[in-house]
């Protein structure tokens, strides 16, 4: 039985190798959310994700047991975790080389049959791989943000905000009615030179939303239609839809005010702090699609920090802070207050403001 190996090259900045022993996935596009970055082969990968049973290398490293379910060693972390009252989902994982240039993640899980059929390999990609990208990109002098990005005529803008701040709705409107382009509504990469780069994750989902929905709200009927549309694979993700220098950063706050307002943030440290905190909060965020209701990366890294306080969570975000300091110092940053209820006027005002 041979394993399937996939290579992903993310804008020549980060290279990922994924090995899995599962053979079938009903929804390939969902099982492989990074598929737009797929390539034939790669040398010198930065992250290696192996899915399937593995032999933990507990004895090789100087490992300390923490809270029964964690083993932390030099540059090493082993985790046993579960979700649901009776542990319907359970998994074990190990990280090798958290401090080094090449990170290896081994992952094995027991998940319900439905999930196994539909997207057997999705879980490690959303609960382990994506959260670590915030850290891994920073090691490569680039910034990975929990933000949407849009571009028009070589001018790129970023919309950062917590979940529910209408990033996706605004993006959909900007694309449909104001001739901006994008396919990245969740995450975006900023290179050291200030280029904004696409990061589509589950791109068929956002594609479908732009084509068929008015807002980011997904009614049940549309969910079914969307699921059916996934059965015909199509590959048309444009990785250059955002192609330009960073011009403006909008930090979106959903608040109980009656109308939208724009306030310039002159304190660049404050802007950086907000962008970083917005990312850190994502370590806690659920990825309900996989059935896991709370993000665990913060917990995993906290347990690691206990054994190695010199490698604590603050230090993990330090590199990103420095990169963002550099980026933000030459960018306009605004805080945008958005009313609780969304309407198309909001996107119109944002378009007027940006253009």
């Amino acid at each position, binding site marked *: 039985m041979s394993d399937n190996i996939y290579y992903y090259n993310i804008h020549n900045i980060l290279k990922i190798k994924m090995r899995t022993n599962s053979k079938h996935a009903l929804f390939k596009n969902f099982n492989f959310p990074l598929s737009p970055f797929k390539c034939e082969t790669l040398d010198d990968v930065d992250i290696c994700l192996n899915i399937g049973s593995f032999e933990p290398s507990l004895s090789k490293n100087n490992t300390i047991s923490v809270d029964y379910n964690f083993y932390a060693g030099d540059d090493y972390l082993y985790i046993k975790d579960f979700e649901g009252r009776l542990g319907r989902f359970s998994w074990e994982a190990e990280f090798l080389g958290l401090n080094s240039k090449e990170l290896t993640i081994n992952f094995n899980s027991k998940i319900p049959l439905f999930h196994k059929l539909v997207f057997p390999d999705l879980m490690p990609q959303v609960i382990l791989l994506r959260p670590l990208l915030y850290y891994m990109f920073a090691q490569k002098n680039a910034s990975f943000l929990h933000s949407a990005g849009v571009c028009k005529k070589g001018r790129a803008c970023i919309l950062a905000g917590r*979940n529910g701040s209408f990033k996706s709705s605004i993006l959909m409107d900007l694309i449909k009615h104001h001739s901006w382009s994008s396919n990245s509504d969740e995450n975006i990469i900023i290179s050291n030179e200030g280029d904004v780069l696409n990061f589509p994750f589950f791109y068929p989902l956002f594609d479908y939303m732009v084509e068929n929905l008015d807002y980011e709200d997904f009614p049940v009927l549309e969910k079914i239609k969307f699921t059916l549309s996934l059965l015909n694979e199509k590959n048309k993700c444009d990785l250059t839809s955002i192609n330009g220098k960073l011009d403006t950063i909008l930090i979106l706050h959903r608040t109980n005010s009656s109308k939208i307002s724009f306030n310039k943030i002159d304190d660049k440290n404050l802007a950086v702090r907000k962008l970083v905190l917005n990312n850190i909060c994502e370590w806690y965020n659920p990825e309900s699609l996989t059935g896991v*209701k709370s993000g665990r990366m913060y917990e995993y890294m906290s347990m690691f920090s206990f054994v190695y306080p010199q490698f604590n969570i603050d230090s993990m975000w330090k590199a990103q802070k420095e990169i963002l300091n550099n980026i933000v110092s030459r960018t306009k940053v605004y805080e945008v207050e958005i009313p609780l209820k969304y309407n198309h006027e909001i996107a119109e005002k944002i378009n007027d403001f940006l253009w």
Partner: protein
Amino acid sequence: MSLVKYFNIHDTIKFKLEYNKSLSHILLGNPFNKYSYYEVDSEPKEIDFIVKIEKPCFQPPVKYYQAAGKNCYGYNYIFVKNDSYKLINWQFLLRGFENKKDVIEASVWGDTLSIRWIPSAMIDFLIHYTAVASGSCIIHSSGISYNNKGYFFSSRSGGGKTKTALEFMKTDKNSLFLSDNYLLLNEGMLNNFIASMSVYKYNIPPELEEKIGMDGKLRLLMGELITKLTAGKLRVATLVSFGDLLPEKISKKIPITKGFILFPSLNSCDVIIEKINREAFVNYLTENQKCEFLPINKHILNYSYFFTENSLEKHWDVYRQNLEMNLINVDLFKVTIPIRFDHNLLIEKMVRVINE
């Protein structure tokens, strides 16, 4: 029937707790008995916080932000509607935490099993938080008084805090118990923190087992059964209180003499006890403490995103300072313990260090 209880922990932390009795309290034990050692009859002056176990009612502040579902963050105000973190499904309202003078108010609610987590997820956090505000600090440690000197043993869970403290007490009949889980450090003294201990059938010390009575024994068995049925995923602890079982063996407070942090190691073959400097030790204790409050930390981070300067986030710096102040002139050790190691040999080695 609503119960109102008042607690006073060493005149440093004073709080009020309101809850209704429920069937699960009878079956699994009342989780709010955790603090009963510190219960007082009448309302203490200058209460620090009030916790009500009830469905929180959203009274919108003048200005608030919404994030991650319907959670609302206003200045000095956090309203969380249906959040889950691992086994906890809860909702809560927390306010009055920005100014030291204010009384912090929390309303917390969840399903039957989640309510059992409220003491550790919310009340312990508020105890810790108000301790920091009053210049002291709570550490995740067990502690004993041995030859009239105070020693504490910190670790993450599963590191052997309780066991080490109890084993020490066996070696010297005059030694006294301070805590198995948390300690209050104030002005260079270890203050006891007698809360109900979470014990399981496999780890209950025999001297306690013989005192817990029939209902305690039944609960132990039930807990073990649930653990077995869920293949070890769900641990239902039985709550026993050292304060009730062995009241004569408790010390109130004692000067801090030596501190240990325990690391259970998979690979080392021998106990290694090394003296470490205060800064390194404080780092270990701070990270340990941070791990204790992960469910609420999620909302502190979200709150900090909207209100970048705030007391909730800043209190960790103060915590560190308070800890450093309390550990001046204290010898601090890191102890690496092989996972399968004879505890008597460990105690023997540690007694040698203590008597040095």
